[in-house]
């Protein structure tokens, strides 16, 4: 017995040996996200002559489990910018709050011009690149849609590596394989953007959402779609896929009733 209350009632070092602290240690090397957890699938977007259309379904998957079916992945920043999020949902929420605080700060002054889509893309791509450089990536692929400083349609992408690129049509995830070829059929280059009307663009993007629902197992027939023009943002978050036809499935092994 000694005079230190902290040691009373504990195994004596001289009998049992010193306590093995390695069992008690919780702090290992600091770990960052190694892989996304709850994820959203493709985001699809296309420019047209007066603006941009962007869409993403309302599903958040937990691996192969369709975990949340009411997740809005198209987020409005202001009257001329919308961001579409693919990838990790919690990182999306972090970015959403980041953009929210940015918007609050931007509106301290009413005299300055609001941030446009180009500005926001630059900002977000730097956030993404910084985080990847810290080995602590935000596991997302973003599409930033809206108008640039000259009120012309703007569409660009930023991903978890900080990679950025712009194109007349863009799609993330599965959409890059399935939707992009469909989109490029109508909008092959920057010049053809002028020939596409708003209705055509909306129809085109909706068609892509349908193909993605047919072929992407981690997708949903409920989706959000936004149209950004000079008139502002028109965001619908509870759309349902229309005019589905599963007739094609009959001829495909695994889809229909036939076994071989």
């Amino acid at each position: 017995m000694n005079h230190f209350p902290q040691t009373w009632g504990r195994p004596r070092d001289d009998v049992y040996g010193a306590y093995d602290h390695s069992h008690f240690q919780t702090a290992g090397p600091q770990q960052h996200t190694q892989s996304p957890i709850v994820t959203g699938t493709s985001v699809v977007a296309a420019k047209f002559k007066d603006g941009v259309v962007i869409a993403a379904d309302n599903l958040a998957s937990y691996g192969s489990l369709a975990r949340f079916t009411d997740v809005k992945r198209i987020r409005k920043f202001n009257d001329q910018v919308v961001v579409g999020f693919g990838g990790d949902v919690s990182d999306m929420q972090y970015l959403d709050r980041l953009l929210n605080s940015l918007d609050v700060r931007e509106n301290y002054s009413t005299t300055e011009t609001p941030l446009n889509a180009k500005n926001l893309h630059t900002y977000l791509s730097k956030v993404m690149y910084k985080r990847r450089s810290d080995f602590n990536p935000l596991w997302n692929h973003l599409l930033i849609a809206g108008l640039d400083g000259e009120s012309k349609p703007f569409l660009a992408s930023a991903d978890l590596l900080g990679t950025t690129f712009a194109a007349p049509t863009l799609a993330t995830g599965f959409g890059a394989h399935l939707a992009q070829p469909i989109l490029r059929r109508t909008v092959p280059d920057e010049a053809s953007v002028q020939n596409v009307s708003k209705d055509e663009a909306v129809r085109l993007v909706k068609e892509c959402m349908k193909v993605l629902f047919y072929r992407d197992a981690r997708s949903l027939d409920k989706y959000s779609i936004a149209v950004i023009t000079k008139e502002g943002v028109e965001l619908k978050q509870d759309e349902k896929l229309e005019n589905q036809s599963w007739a094609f499935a009959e001829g495909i092994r695994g889809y229909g009733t036939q076994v071989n």
Partner: protein
Amino acid sequence: MASVFSGAPPQGGPGYSFKQIPTAAPSGERQHGFYPYTDNGGSTLGISGEKFTILAGDTRHTQGYNINTRYAPKLFKIGGEGPENKGARIVLSVVGFAADGDALKERLDTIVKMYKYQHGKPMTVSACAQRLSHILYNKRFFPYYVHAILGGLDEEGRGALYSYDPVGSYEREQCRAAGAAASLIMPFLDNQVNFKNQYEAGSGTGHDLQARVAQPLPRNVVEDLVRDAFTSAVERHIEVGDGLQMMIITQDGIEETYTPLKRD
């Protein structure tokens, strides 16, 4: 005061069974399953002439088998005025990991602009070239995953071309191809620019053969070489295509051209 209430045992007394302070984790060590690089494909090429330098790059941007976009420039004006780099006389081309390329471009551009503000004269290409080397070398333990080529005119007005590896090793050259199709274009350049394996006609055979001596090529010849190099690379490499961007740096400024390439 605080020492009276500290839970620590007196010096030299018996230790506690449980340490009060958890042993610190090995500092700074991190474990990761995240790979911070990707290859965005494409190729670049630079050739310097007597009074000009040409830099060229295709505009395709890829990731795996996907074409991200058909127009993503790999050529950047460095220095000059404002975001459009008006009056710039230096061009940087980067190929490899595009995000690092953009970051590198922005750093170099800022430095060159700051140089002019601080010294009241534009940075020379040789100074810029060495600075670029330092930027790359400083990040050698987490490199900018790019193959950079820097072009401009030297103090005598001659074409200057510098090429780099990702960690800053650099060299002034007559010509250099980089990126996905470098191994396809470089031998062509060796032959057509530096006249490798070319001999003076009628100089004989065996030891009598006289190597054809390389000399600076005229601009139109170089432009044609660049176009030929890329149209051929497009045929043989899937990551090259869509468009060819060229920047020709002369005494009068930077001329920029764009030629469509095959999009298949």
